[in-house]
């Protein structure tokens, strides 16, 4: 394993000589899709819990479809499927976008994680104490102000434990990116495997890298929870935690 890592550490970590590869690409895929998914999920979650059927039903349908089908199939649909369509290939803008496996991977990942994140946030919004909403109404807040000042700050915090789970699952899901020719960690491991025939060692290095990222994410989220969920801890425990 050390021998393969000594030979392949550069592509595994940041570059295969021509372009970025390995760890850097995996982290970029993760960060881009999580950021896009988060930004879309907040308004979608508000729509999901809305009493207006015209708002909530389309969102519900979207999350149902994207949570009910495998991410790999979604990626295939966007990458191989879209490019096989006549009108995509003839329109230069669409052609340029769907030609790149990287774009398709980020789009598929963002759509997928957004569906899960929407449901997580919607659950957290529904779980808000109704007294808080009544108090906000009594202060004369508009719905928008109430969401901005009261509901979202509380819901996003309480969603943290589930959200951290989703981020780690998303890290694991980025491994299908190599099927769209994106040179992530797994792609490098496959290259190392086909060059050396040392399967256990090549994929073992990839596995260790993923374990390291997972543990780093878990540690980061634990810190975030300690900071933003401090108000949910029993009163005596707060002082005991060092900041």
């Amino acid at each position, binding site marked *: 394993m050390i021998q393969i890592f000594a030979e392949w550490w550069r592509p595994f970590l940041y570059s295969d000589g021509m372009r970025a590869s390995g760890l850097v690409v995996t982290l970029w895929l993760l960060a881009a899709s999580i950021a896009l998914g988060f930004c879309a999920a907040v308004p979608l979650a508000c729509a999901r819990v809305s009493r207006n059927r015209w708002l909530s039903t389309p969102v519900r349908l979207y999350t149902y479809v994207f949570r009910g089908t495998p991410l790999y199939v979604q990626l295939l649909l966007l990458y191989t499927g879209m490019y096989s369509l006549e009108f995509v290939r003839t329109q230069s803008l669409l052609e340029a976008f769907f030609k790149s496996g990287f774009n398709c991977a980020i789009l598929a990942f963002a759509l997928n994680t957004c569906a899960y994140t929407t449901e997580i946030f919607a659950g957290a919004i529904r779980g808000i104490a109704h007294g808080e909403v009544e108090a906000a109404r009594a202060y004369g807040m508009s719905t928008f102000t109430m969401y901005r000042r009261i509901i979202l700050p509380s819901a996003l915090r309480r969603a943290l434990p589930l959200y951290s789970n989703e981020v780690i699952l998303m890290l694991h899901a980025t491994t299908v990116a190599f099927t769209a020719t994106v040179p992530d960690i797994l792609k490098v491991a496959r290259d190392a495997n086909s060059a050396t025939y040392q399967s256990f060692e090549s994929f073992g290095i990839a596995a260790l890298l*993923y374990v390291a990222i997972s543990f780093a994410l878990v540690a980061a989220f634990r810190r975030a929870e300690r900071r933003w969920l401090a108000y949910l801890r029993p009163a005596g425990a707060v002082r005991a935690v060092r900041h």
Partner: protein
Amino acid sequence: MILYGFGPLLWAGAKETLALAVLSLAVSVLLGLAGASAKLSRHAPLRAVATAYTTLIRSVPDLVLMLLLFYSIQIAINNVTDAFGWSQFDIDPFTAGVLTLGFIYGAYFTETFRGAFLAVPRGQLEAGSAYGMSGMRVFGRILFPQMMRFALPGIGNNWQVLVKATALVSIIGLADVVKAAQDAGKSTFNMFFFILIAALIYLAITSASNLVLMALERRYSIGVRHAEL
């Protein structure tokens, strides 16, 4: 015909996917029960092995594990057959797929079952032994039926994730529904349509399992009073 004559191929692929999912579920439930018992055991080495299993497997992506195990199982078997001077024994991709998926999801089921075992009040198990029931009988009559009540939501979740993970086996060369859709799409130049069909098949499977899980949850929550809000 609407599927350009690829209907039977897709149907065979869908059956392969379902068979793979169901068999891996069986393997992973067995592993999960064993793992949960090991995690709750009095023997420290057993606990350590089970903890290492769940922590490691759950922090490595399933696709990486699949490739790692899929290639390594064959190499390990080759090493064994070479060492004993036997003839080469090729493991077929289906068995390898079932074993790898079962091994991976066994770790997730271990955690589900561990929580569920702990949720059954100890006093009931003690009462069972006090009535003179054997360990197996306490398990079958008291622990298992009540554990299922707590474990069902987790089992349902894991099953849905497992079904979706079967889509990855086409990468290691199994003729599942995704592979069938890709082949059909390649030969008809209608990739989008056939992958959409594959997606719909998965949606049908997950929707059907949702219904079954709801029915099971009703069955196992007989006798539980829900708070009325």
